[in-house]
Each structure stands twice: as structure tokens, then as C-alpha cells.
């Protein structure tokens, strides 16, 4: 490959794949915020409802 093309290939990989890696690492370091306001609990009462079948 020519030098110029190689530079841009490497740049693309470093910036975009590096960005992916960085965003994964950032998320893993703090998966969830620890300062979420009170409330917002989800209602799970019917999450696993009995299977309904059309007969």
C-alpha cells in the first residue's frame, strides 16, 4: 500500500475501533450511574404471565 493510504487506513482503525474500545471500557468501568434520583422502580408483577394460547 502507498504510505498515504496506509496512514488513513491506520487512522480509521485507531479512531473508530479505538472509539469502540474506549466506549466499552468506559461503560464497563461504570455500568450504571450511582446518582439516579429516587423512584422509577419498574413493575415486574406480570412479567412472566401464564402462557396464553388461542384455542
Amino acid at each position, binding site marked *: 500500500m502507498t504510505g*498515504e*493510504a496506509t496512514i488513513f487506513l491506520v487512522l480509521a482503525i485507531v479512531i473508530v475501533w479505538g472509539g469502540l474500545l474506549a*466506549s466499552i471500557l468506559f461503560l464497563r468501568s461504570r455500568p450504571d450511574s450511582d446518582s439516579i434520583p429516587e423512584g422509577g422502580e*419498574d413493575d415486574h408483577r406480570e412479567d412472566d404471565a401464564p402462557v396464553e394460547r388461542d384455542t
Partner: protein
Amino acid sequence: MTASSGAPAAARPREQWTGQVGFILAAIGSAVGLGNIWRFPGVAYENGGGAFLIPYFVALLTAGIPILFLDYAIGHRFRGSPPTAFRRLTRGGEALGWFQVMICVVIALYYTAVIAWALSYFVFSFDLRWGDNPGAFFTGEYLQVADPGISLDFVPGVLIPLAAVWVIAIIVLMAGVARGVQRANVIFLPLLVVAFLILVVRALFLDGAVDGLNALFTPDYSALADPNVWIAAYSQIFFSLSIAFGIMITYASYRKRRANLTAPGFVVAFANSSFEILAGIGVFATLGFFAFQQGVTVPELEGLTGVGLSFVTFPAIVSQMPGGPLFGALFFGSLTMAGFTSLLSILQVISAGFQEKFGLSPRQAALRIGAVAAVVSILLFSTTTGLHALDTADHWANNIGIVASAVLSSVLVVWVLRRGGELRHHLNAVSTFRLGGWWTFLVGVLAPVILGYMLVSRIVTLISEGYEGLPGWYLLVVGWGAVAFIVLAALVLTALRWKRSPDDFVPWPTFGPGVDTDHKEVRS
């Protein structure tokens, strides 16, 4: 049905992803679609090669990711598909929500057809059925394309895989968000990445691969001064990320309330672009081999994007390659999987919209709406006039429908309702990556200006120059007709009665005077 009418307390709780990873995989599966494989490489090559990466990256950061966050905020705060979420934002917003759902309907009708083609070609790869002239095989023997018009001459070779794609998609949707859509993505997305990685590695070892990479990555700096190149970059980012037509609103609405939004959003956006770069390398290494075989240079090749690239150029390459059948199977298998996971997200928007408005279960919505859509899709796109209809509907649904939807959402939220601060507060309250006032500027000013320019210039071009040399009456019926259908259906669906009113809803976390939008400290 278990739900008793009119009693919110008895309302079934919203379906949910099983967790952060499930949501991220599904969102990446949605964003990574046909466009990543067949659109990005050609667009990058034609718009400055390596230099295109600069406007591309700027567009990702200034428009793609901010609009993605806008979708997340609307869906997650107002907990619904677009009609529900926009109605909870403001009563009249429901029509915009249905506008987005109807865009999804139109896209789903033809998107399934392309996946069906890819599935057929996956099978054809094993015996190189396209022979010596893949171009003639595709439009002639396979699609049996007739003059543009309306025909009922069905092509069995398309009808059967098309019906199969619909049946599988409906079965996945019936199983619900976690057990259907998420599970399909957990299976197909890793499989897609592995299959495509094998393909790229193989491509890199072909003769001429280096010439292809040189063609793609050698920068043409003069492109940076061309406004059209910047518009191409914003379009590529915009269409690639599955934003502004309801998908990310719907997907975010299935996240639990106390869930991080922005940090996973970066993972989704960068994963989508990462796959585009990978596809660029794979596609251009392969094209380099093709040019080498033909004894020409890469710029002399034709059919570098879209349907032509996938169903004409690639089959021709596969025929000339040692081990071609395996390479073809990997390519068309990847195309099928990338398309299918995106299709699921498009259909989930439609399903969710109808579930919420008409009180249907996921199973009922998938079966009823899926059956109707499948019939219409087969009628329109498995006939001898399917290719023209598909190309035209695709162009209008994307360039007019989705772009208008983005401009309308942004203007409505930021300018008409002045709720940008509330949505920023919402994202900051639940997320680990905090957004500053710049986010409101990007979503409220930059995005509508650029997208508005794209929309107006496209409308002018389509009216003055037509499209692909197709007859004017045909563009009026299929292109503008699709847009008119989307608008009309949106108005009708808005006017119908809700089975259970969505209006008894209090957004969480609370927002009002005294609440710090930057969320350094929030009063509870």
C-alpha cells in the same frame, strides 16, 4: 386478553430487555444493516476516499450520536413506541409518531424483499448459479424484470424466500422483545461478525487487494472543500444509525427506567461505524482483486454500491475466485443476517405502535400486522415490476420520509415545545456520561439546518430531474404516493380511539423549576 379496560393499575408492565448487554446487542443489530455493507464503502470511495473519514467522523459526533440520544430520551422518558411517546410529550405529537411508524411499514415491505434476494443468492453461491453474466442473471433469470408498471406476474424464485423471511420474522416478533428480538440478535450478531471477519481476512490475501485498499483510503483533500461531500457524510451517518424513524425510540422504551443511556449509546454508535470500516476494507480488497483479474484499475470498475455491488459485481467476483462458493456464502450470509436483525427492529416499531394503541399482545400484533404486511409485500415485490418499485419506494421513504421526520422531531421538541432541557435532564439523570448545553445546540440547531438543507435540495432535484430515468407518472404514484400514503395513514391512525388511554402517565424523573439539568445535584 388479561387487561381490563381503563384501569391503569391492571395494565401489563412494559416488556424489557434482559439487561444492558441485551439492549446494546439489539441496538447494534438494528444499526448494522445492508447500508453498512453495500453503501458505506462506495460512498466513502466516491467522496474523497481517506479524506472522507474527516467529515464522516465530524458527522458522527455532531449529528449521529446527538440524534441517537434524542431518540433514546424520547423513548425512555415517555416509555412507548413513537405514537405513545410523542403523545405523552404533547397531545398532537401522536401524528408524528404514526408518521414514523408508517415509514417503518413502507420500509419493511421492501426491506424483506432485499433480504429474500440475499437469501436466494446465499443458496446460489454453492453452485455459482449466476453463471458468466451475473448482471443478466439478476434482472433477467432471477427477478425477471419487466418495464416499470403494476403487474401481477409473480416470480416464484423471489416469492418463496420472501414468504419465508416474513414467516421467520413474524415468529421472532411473536416471542416478544426479550425472548424473540433480543434472542435473535444475540445469535445473529456474533455470527455476522465472525462470518464477515473470515470474509475480510480472505479478501486481504487476494491478488490486487492492496490496490483496492489504496483506492479506498488514498485521500483526495480537495473533497473537503466540496459541500456535497459533507452532505454525503451526514447522510451516511444519518441513514446508517437507524435514527429518527422510531426504532431507537421503541428500543429505548424497553429499557428499565433506572438504566444508563448515553454510555451504551456510544458503544452502539461506534460499533456501527466499526462495522462500516470493516466492510470498507473487505469490499474494497475484493474489488481490488476484481480489477486485477480484469486487468483494469479500481476506478474503472462499475457497480460499487447498493444492489449493483451486491447482486452483480460480487457474484462476478465470486465466480473468478478460488474457493468462490464459500466466499459467496459468507458474503450473502452476512448480508442476510445484517438485514434480518435490522428488519426485526423496523417491525418491532410497527408491532409496538399497534400493541399500544389497540391493546394487542405482542403475539396478536405480530400475527395480524405481519400477515397483512406479508401479503402486501409479496404482491408488490415478488412480481416482475418489483425492482423498480423497490428502488423508488426506498429513495422516497429514506430521503423524504426519514429526513422530514428528523427535522420535524427536532423542531417540535426543541423549538415548538422547548423541551430540549427536559430531555437533556432525563439523559443526565440516569446516565454516566453527562451532556452539556452543546447537545441541545447540536440537536436543535445544527441537525435541522443540515437535514433541512438535505431535504429541500432533494425535493428540488427529484421534481426537476426525476429519478433514474423512470417515467414521471410512475414516480408520482410509487415515490410521492408512498409519502402521501405515509401521511394519510398517520392521520387516520391518530384519529382512531385508544383501547387504553396512554395519557395517565407521569414522566420520571421529575423535571421542573429548580431541577438542575446538568444534574450535578438533583433535588428529589
